[in-house]
């Protein structure tokens, strides 16, 4: 009763196309979220109070607001900015896909900022001082000492956040994009069998999550080779 093989076979291409959209959205959101979160995280740890307050506001705003509300605000709000329809940016954002990625990235950046800022703060001061004492410039200290160490500290939380990004992409159904959930929904309306498409979609999501967790494990090994070295 739960699974119907003929439905599955007939509609597998639809579901796969949906899965591709979901993976695409997740990848672009992970990139966009990181690009937005890094400067905000640096502001969060800055000396001055103005950047710190900005970062606090940013985090509160995007962590406290439901993803769907942010999506609708961007989707309906951007076109109302005067003059935007004449500017070249309009060509880029007149389609739902870039708007969805922008909204998802902003939401993810709210969570990512805290993760990155926390990891950067927890790099031992001694390491930074030692690097400076060895004559590394500030930029070198950041790229060679602080960033790798912070990446190690943040990796676990980052993996969890990536799973949340994947789950969050389902909201794009509200702005006419058909992702994996949307594809399953379409199959339901064609066949009136909710179980086959939705369970298959669920299995796809699980497979993506497992792949993500494997990637995090792999990155953990690469970043901490000594912790995983074979005992000699």
């Amino acid at each position, binding site marked *: 009763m739960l699974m119907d093989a003929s439905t599955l076979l007939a509609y597998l291409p639809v579901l796969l196309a949906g899965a591709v959209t979901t993976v695409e959205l997740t990848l672009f959101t992970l990139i966009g979220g990181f690009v937005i979160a890094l400067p905000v995280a640096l502001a969060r740890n800055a000396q001055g109070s103005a950047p710190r307050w900005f970062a606090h506001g940013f985090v509160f705003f995007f962590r406290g607001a*439901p993803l*769907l509300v942010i999506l*609708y*605000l961007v989707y309906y709000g951007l076109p109302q900015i005067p003059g935007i329809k004449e500017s070249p940016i309009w060509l880029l954002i007149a389609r739902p896909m870039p708007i969805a990625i922008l909204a998802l990235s902003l939401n993810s950046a709210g969570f990512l900022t805290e993760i990155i800022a926390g990891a950067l703060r927890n790099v031992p001061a001694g390491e930074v001082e030692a690097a400076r004492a060895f004559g590394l410039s500030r930029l070198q200290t950041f790229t060679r000492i602080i960033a790798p160490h912070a990446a190690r500290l943040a990796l676990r939380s980052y993996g969890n956040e990536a799973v949340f990004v994947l789950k969050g*992409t389902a909201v794009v159904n509200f702005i006419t994009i058909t992702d994996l959930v949307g594809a399953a929904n379409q199959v339901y309306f064609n066949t009136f069998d*909710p*179980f086959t498409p*939705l369970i298959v979609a669920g299995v796809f999501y699980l497979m993506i999550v497992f792949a993500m967790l494997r990637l995090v494990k792999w990155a953990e090994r690469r970043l901490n080779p000594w912790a995983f070295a074979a005992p000699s």
Partner: protein
Amino acid sequence: MDLALFSLGPTGWGDELIAGLDLTLRLAVTAIIAGTALGLVSALAEITPVPLLGRSLESINMVLRSVPELLVIFLIYYGAAIALAALLAPLGFTGFFEIDRFWSGVLALALIHAAYASEVFRGGFLAVPKGEIDAARAFGMSPLLVFFRIRLPLAFRLAMPGLTNLVMTTLKSTPLVSAIGLQDLIRVAGDAGQNTKEYFQFYMATLVIYLGIAAVVLVLQTRSERRLFRHLRVGR
């Protein structure tokens, strides 16, 4: 900002928005209470040494934590009627079930909440110091009494920060139930936007309401944590 849009009565959308907010809050509170209770039960089942039960609950929770909320909502809303009818078919039932949207939404959000809460509670139970349990046993408390007087209160305290975070997460998932046609806050705001072509203002109002709720939860969280962990504070 045009305040006439938000006035009460037939011309403004104020009363409709309040009704939507009422539905959202009822849905969230019911789902959070039911989900927390379910999560506690699930955590207890996971830490009791009944092998198969714990493992299967763990897998179910893992699945619920990996798939989008929207998928669970659809599965329950579309699937519950068919599943119920199929279950009752052997008893000679041939009718059709009308599944209530509100309760499908509550059930979906509660199950997801429970999947996360179970993890939080389990962490709490595992973090209860063994010495406290040994001490209580040495004082002659029965295992049941130890559970209610020592393990449960301590685990609850340790789980509290995680649980309040979950309250926020579930609150922010509530707009998703508008996908099954519930007239919640965001759906009403959308209808108002469609009628007046003022989408931005109505969604902005929705945002402010949600951020207000988030701020209240945040204050309650800081307060409750200060109270629960006051024994750990040094000096004052």
